[in-house]
């Protein structure tokens, strides 16, 4: 019996359904009309953004919050190129998204047709893999592979470019049960011998530090991490991407390390005799001057991506594998050895006491205070951030206890990421309070999405730490460019309360400390999209700070 044929567009929708996709963030256009026509009847929620960049960030936020693959959709040419920043953001932070783009009909490809852009070429360096559909009958196989590649191994974005004529071509649809990729077989199980060697180093270390990142969260290894840390009584420092992987109020927590990390995390790294690095990539914002990083330590590096091992630092024991899997095995060989690290933990406790993360506690409304109040009023919130000072304060002063509760553009550092990502987070986690800790600069990069959150009733809260500056750049200008504030002043650029109201969202403002809690509570209670305009001290600095090019123990306190 001949199978009934369906259009390529229908095959796309069927493939998405097979992958369990329940929501798409997108924006229509000429070369995706057949797809949007199929979406009209489909059982998949589509959220119409106001700029394609936001669709990519929303898919990314959705993926980070839920662990599922996020999906965004745009038309050819400018629609596709508008996704690029979002795809690059996801690539740098290993976030599984599938981006779908329309393309001009096959016969026109290469002719500089209207709204044609070579998006597979453009995204080559910022996708884990990408596809141009050459034949409609390849659609099911390509979708199966794309979702598999996006979510397995080291996750990452995959783009599928779909020419318009393949969307209308009839095909026999059969979704493949498995993928067969000769060149893609991620290693999940760590080498047993290497794990034994690592265990032996760990048991002999007197000053161990666990340095952990996003890999712990992606592989769902928080429990195993806690087991290891408590088992060997080793302190844990997390990267920005690793916030939430280890409870920040745990006695063994050192908080974040690196440029704006805690003094005690950086000191611990520099004095350590063994660093166990898990799901991290020794980024320059973490290591500072690389030749001076952890000079006394042996390094065990556990990562699912072999290319990360030995890329930036020499490693004594490399272990390629999935963090959860490797840690489970490692725990078999590591027994409690409290006495060995007792002196070390005492030393760290003294540092913690001497150099706490703090700020000036006076009557002025300071941004750190706002973040602390958010942490108090909404301890279970998912915090999303923009990029810059707001991001660092959000990392420093909120008490993270669970994975997937801190969502931020770490690698690419994309201003404008937070608000649309928060939208995706809220769609994926509708029961959670979702707060975008924003700066007045970053927020304005994607503030058009207020229309989207109002239209689709996605009640995210944007907490703007409004200092009328591009604060982080201003901070650098203050410190290294003789306070010449070149093009960083945004004073009186917009009334955020009126902006919120113009879109039909709730707008509230706080100018003094006493108002902060009230407006946070009011926003949460309203269950509406809300903008909170916190008019904070203008020239507050993120402190402490390791100057660029310095070793991470050369850390300064800034007033």
């Amino acid at each position, binding site marked *: 019996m001949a199978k009934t044929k369906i259009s390529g567009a229908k095959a796309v929708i069927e493939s998405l359904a097979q992958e369990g996709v329940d929501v798409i963030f997108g924006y229509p256009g000429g070369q995706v009309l057949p797809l949007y026509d199929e979406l009209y009847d489909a059982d998949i929620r589509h959220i119409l953004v106001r700029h394609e960049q936001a669709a990519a960030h929303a898919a990314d936020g959705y993926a980070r919050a839920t662990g599922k693959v996020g999906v965004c959709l745009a038309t050819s040419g400018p629609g596709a190129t508008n996704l690029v920043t979002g795809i690059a953001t996801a690539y740098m932070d290993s976030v599984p998204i599938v981006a779908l783009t329309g393309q001009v009909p096959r016969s026109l490809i290469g002719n500089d047709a209207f709204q044609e852009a070579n998006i597979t070429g453009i995204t*080559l360096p910022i996708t*884990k893999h990408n596809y*141009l559909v050459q034949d409609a009958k390849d659609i099911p196989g390509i979708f199966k592979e794309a979702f598999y590649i996006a979510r397995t191994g080291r996750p990452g974005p995959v783009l599928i470019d779909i020419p318009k004529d393949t969307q209308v071509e009839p095909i026999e649809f059969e979704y493949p049960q498995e993928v067969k990729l*000769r*060149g893609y*077989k991620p290693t999940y199980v760590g080498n047993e011998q290497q794990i034994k060697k690592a265990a032996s180093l760990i048991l002999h270390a007197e000053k161990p530090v666990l340095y952990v990142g996003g890999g712990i969260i992606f592989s769902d290894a928080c429990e195993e991490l806690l087991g290891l840390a408590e088992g060997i009584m080793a302190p844990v420092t997390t990267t920005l991407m690793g916030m939430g992987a280890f409870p920040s109020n745990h006695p063994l927590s050192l908080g974040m390390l690196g440029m704006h990390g805690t003094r005690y995390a950086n000191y611990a790294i520099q004095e350590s005799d063994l660093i166990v690095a898990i799901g991290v990539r020794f980024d320059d914002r973490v290591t500072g001057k690389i030749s001076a990083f952890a000079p006394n330590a042996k390094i065990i590096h556990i990562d699912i991506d*072999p*290319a990360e091992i*030995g*890329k930036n630092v020499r490693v004594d024991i490399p272990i390629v594998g999935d963090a959860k899997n490797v840690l489970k095995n490692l725990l078999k060989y590591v027994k409690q050895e409290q006495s060995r690290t007792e002196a070390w933990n005492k030393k760290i406790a003294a540092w913690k006491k001497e150099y706490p993360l703090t700020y000036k506690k006076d009557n002025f409304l300071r941004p750190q205070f706002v973040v602390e109040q958010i942490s108090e009023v909404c301890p279970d919130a998912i915090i999303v951030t923009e990029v810059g000072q707001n991001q660092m304060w959000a990392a420093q002063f909120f008490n993270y206890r669970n994975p997937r509760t801190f969502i931020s553009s770490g690698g690419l550092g994309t201003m404008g990421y937070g608000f649309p990502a928060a939208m995706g987070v809220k769609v994926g986690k509708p029961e959670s309070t979702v707060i975008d800790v924003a700066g007045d600069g970053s927020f304005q990069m994607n503030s058009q999405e207020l229309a989207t959150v109002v239209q689709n009733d996605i009640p995210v809260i944007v907490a703007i730490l409004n200092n009328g500056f591009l604060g982080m750049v201003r901070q650098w200008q203050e410190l290294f460019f003789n306070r010449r504030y070149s093009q960083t002043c945004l004073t009186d650029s917009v009334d955020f309360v009126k902006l919120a109201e113009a879109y039909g969202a709730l707008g509230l403002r706080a100018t003094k400390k006493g108002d902060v809690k009230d407006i946070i509570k009011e926003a949460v209670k309203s269950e509406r999209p809300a903008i909170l305009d916190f008019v904070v001290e203008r020239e507050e600095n993120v402190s402490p700070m390791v100057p660029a090019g310095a070793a991470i123990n050369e850390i300064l306190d800034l007033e």
Partner: protein
Amino acid sequence: MKRTLAVLVENKPGVLARVAGLFSRRGFNIESLAVGVTENPDTSRMTIVVSGDDHVLEQVMKQLNKLIDVIRVSDLPAEEAVNRELALIKVGVDSTTRAEVMQIVDVFRAKIVDVGIKSVVVEVTGDESKINAMEQLLRQFGIKEMVRTGKIAMNRGAKVVQTEKKA
């Protein structure tokens, strides 16, 4: 230091761009690159000569392996592999020099594959140094045009570069 890599890839459009793009964006230098289909029509084999130290080579291999369309990457150390390159060299000749050119070609066990009134085309196969030496000697007669394939290489003995990646 120059190293030779055998890279098995899916025989699909766009794969060369992925490989070449990787080299340029990661700042690796390609000295030469030769591509052709293997005994399996689904698979192409690239021979890439790359310059860099052990650390660079390790990164090149790891980054290549990350590409989904790359099936296998093997390092072929010079002493354990047969290395060959082919060049076509068009040399200007006249009645007085033709014989001398033919003599050099003979010594090198090269071939003349086209004879014109004012030129001959020489085909030479060998390792890089042989082709360089040939070029050097022919230069005095005037090289009008030259094309080289880039190096291809294969392990000596029974050792083979497998098409199927082991799990």
